[in-house]
């Protein structure tokens, strides 16, 4: 079970309190005139890399807030968590932003 630091509560809590919510920084295209390729990218295409992923979590059995995290899928280590709306930190080792 992972320990996850909730950036809103300011402390690390057990994974039981959280729910994973998919890849982070996938921008929702607005309106009806979005092209097929852009919409396909939004709806279907995910990075799923081996290594550092940026993903969304929700502290569902805590404060209820959605936030973002950078996690290494190889070691399962969380490198950083940050609030929804904040930019992905650029200085993460091996990361891409």
């Amino acid at each position, binding site marked *: 079970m992972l320990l996850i630091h909730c950036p809103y509560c300011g402390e690390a809590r057990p994974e039981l309190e959280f729910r994973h919510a998919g890849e982070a920084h996938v921008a*929702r295209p607005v309106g*009806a005139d979005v092209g097929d390729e852009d919409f396909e990218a*939004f709806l279907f295409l995910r990075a799923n890399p081996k290594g550092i992923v940026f993903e*969304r979590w*929700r502290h569902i059995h805590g404060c209820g*807030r959605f936030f973002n995290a950078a996690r290494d899928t190889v*070691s*399962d280590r969380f490198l950083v968590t940050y609030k929804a709306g904040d930019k992905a930190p650029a200085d993460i080792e091996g990361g891409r932003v």
Partner: protein
Amino acid sequence: MAEAFRIRGAGRIEGARGVRFSFDGQSYRGIEGDTLASALLANGVHLVGRSFKYHRPRGIVSAGAEEPNALVGIRRDRSRQTPNVRATVQEVYDGLVAISQNRWPSLAFDVGAVNDLASPFFSAGFYYKTFMWPKAAWERFYEPFIRRAAGLGVAPDRADADCYSNRFAHCDVLVVGGGAAGLAAALAASDAGASVILADEQAETGGALRGEKTALVDGKSAWEWAKEATETLAQRANVRILTRTTAFGYYAQNMVALSERRTDHLAEPPTDMPRERLWQVRAARVVLATGAIERPMVFPGNDRPGVMLASAARCYLNHYGVAVGRRVGVYTAEDSAWQAAFDLKGAGIDVSAIVDSRPSPPEDFVERATALGIECLTGHAVTGTSGRLRISSLKARRIGGTAIRDIACDALLTSSGWTPSVHLFSQSRGKLVFDADSQRFLPGEGPQDCISAGACAGALSLAEAVEQGFRAGAAASGKRRRKPVPMVTEGASWSEGTLGPAEDAGTGAFAKAFVDFQNDVTAKDIAQAVREGMRSIEHVKRFTTTGMATDQGKTSNMHGLAIAAGILRKPIPEVGLTTFRAPYTPVTFGALAGHARGALFEPVRRTPIHDWAKMQGAVFEDVGQWKRARYFPQDGEDMHGAVARECRTVRESAGVFDASTLGKIEVTGPDAAAFLEMIYTNPWSKLAVGRCRYGVMLREDGFIFDDGVVGRLAEDRFHVTTTTGGAPRVLHHMEDYLQTEFPQMRVYLTSTTEQWAVIAVQGPKSRDIIAPLVEGVDLSDATMPHMSVREGKVCGVPARIFRMSFTGERGFEINVPADFGRAVWEEIFAEAQKTGACAYGTEAMHVLRAEKGYIIVGQDTDGTVTPHDVGLAWAIGKNKTDFVGMRGLMRSDLAAGGRKQLVGLKTIDPRTVLEEGAQIVADPNEPVPMTMIGHVTSAYWSENCGRSIALALLKDGASRIGERLFVPMPDGAVNVEVCRPVFFDEEGGRLHG
């Protein structure tokens, strides 16, 4: 029966209370502190089981958790029976009942042993080859046969009567293993003030020191030092010692799972004591002091009862005071087995010979053995054994020579070296590094805050193990070490050994040199697997099943790997190492389930009206976690009769229905309407206060996600309802968009599902029923038309009254605070009875809504259905520029023809009710597989229509109205006619009163 093999003056449990136990119906004596294995050996019993495949007689191999052979069933009573218990781990208690497994009719005479003679047919991978043809034989013969043959023990046939518990714990340092290294680590860490948990799988700490007799630590016997160290630790407030506790899983961020056995050693466990306790420990640092496991030699006949590990014999002698035989032979390729021979000889046991495959073992050993009168055959191999149910002699041959000597013995101790127990380290995702010199996998770099110490980290002597442990404990505490390292003198040591087959392991048609005892895998099987093309050890493992038994190959994996590598002429690391997976040793389902059984498995949700419905004799159904009244049978009615009556009564008079389980979300704030515009397909901004609307919610992909009626109570306040099962996911979905896509909106979402009891009153008389109870609301059609909402009082209680309908009749849904739900319900019901109305359940609700063609999301939709598919295109706001799912709906596949659309089906024979889920075809005579063009989603007997009705999703359904189609069933196709999905009051006049 006397304990003929108990040696006076040997061992540490002498003088403890005697106990009686039985094995296969025979009564024996033992001593408290014995394991079942030591007590059986004390009585001269080696034969304890039959092997899995060949049913060969098998004896006790080890003295610990790695035991592959000595698996027995332990029976307390019919609901407390445990199969596959390792006799080397099970402690004896007075009255213990153990039985052997995998034999018939008896352990000594087992019919299944014929498999041994037929062994050439059971070679590696035989079931991949043997059971291929004829195809028809599979169901009739092969599968029943394999099922009967599979498994060793017998599973109990009753529910487990014991209880299990679980605990979470946090500590600075978790020390796994209470042997010399672990104790030293715990001492050092706790000395520095760290909070420490020390877990050990044995009944008491000490680990491998159980078998030790000569070593001294800090001037004391090593065992005494261990006991004193344990005493010191037990008195420290910052230390918790858990014995009989196996660390079986190492998970992310230093989460280690422990299974503590609390009652398996007790004759009469207290009834309130959990049998096992699952610990989930989060440690800042972990010290792994898990020791090493001795490997047997791989030679023909190495599985005969009486052949066992040298360290086990030493442990049985020095700890339990039990001699494993009267005339013992030794076959080894490393140093520590020699000490076993010396100890046995010192206890007065005859040692017939020490056979060492090394041409020149340490000279002082040979000298000492010779001085003790033990014959040393160095550079020799044991090439066979004899004896039926117990070894009677070994056959020794000089390596390279031909002359074979037959040496009598009743036990043979073997050792080919020690395999560090790196299981947990590997589970922690640590990298294992192969040390070619010592032929061992050792802990390398690890991603977690974890230190390995002692024999598991490659220590080759007790002194080294204690020092490593002490330093690891001090380092893990994060403080400077203050005290000196315990000093080991006269220390035990062990050497590197040998891997793979010994002499003659691979020759002779019937010679069997076992690698994996529990799964009956021989050296030849592994060689055959490689010959047949298996190149990776992962393939060899699965083809031969080596290492796949309940012991997970603790004594066998390295041999198997070395054999494969030898044949492939590759270095061991290139052939690979199979993955170490949790659990380290088997864990009961009880421990994992803990309290989450029966009524505590999942919360049960009951409405405020539940008890009333129960009193009325309602039959309930589970809807998610909710209990809902399904129907209210009267005067011996069956379900069909009750549902028919309820449906008829609602349309003739009225019915009262408990809709409290509906999901409810209060959406408030200045941007509430704008937010709902994004979440639903419908427009909301122009919805007047006091009106409500049926809303459809999509996912981004354009498919229906949920639906429900939303009422506007004020400009900035909406009462949202969701499906019963959908409430949590709808709130999650709304929160997601509110927090991450539209964070600028000033909207607040509150779950109010359980705050409101909801009483639906539906039917022509519904207004007459509630009118006398309502204050402050004009219920007339003119001022409160269909789809409106008012706040007022019902029975003096604040209420939200919706005029809405899920039946097609004039209807009201009255929301009152949950605590008043029962009282208001009873008053409404009393009024209802005056008009001849009744209470109705979910089944009638389903039928009534289907008569009107109202869909249920999740029943008539399945996550691939758009609003257009089910006739809800009208619910999409035409002038909206964005909502969740709007762009998704424009995907070409969703707009194209050929989609399944909601239709009604009428069976040509009106009495036939279709089956939900049944497929629809155009030509019932088409050969299988037929072209399926749709499926039935809802089907009922409709009392009000006097016929069966069904809803279906049918390809191009809207353009097939009037067509005759077929629903194939096992006893013939049912003829149906496609119709519009409304069966009753198609014009909808009844809705409006």
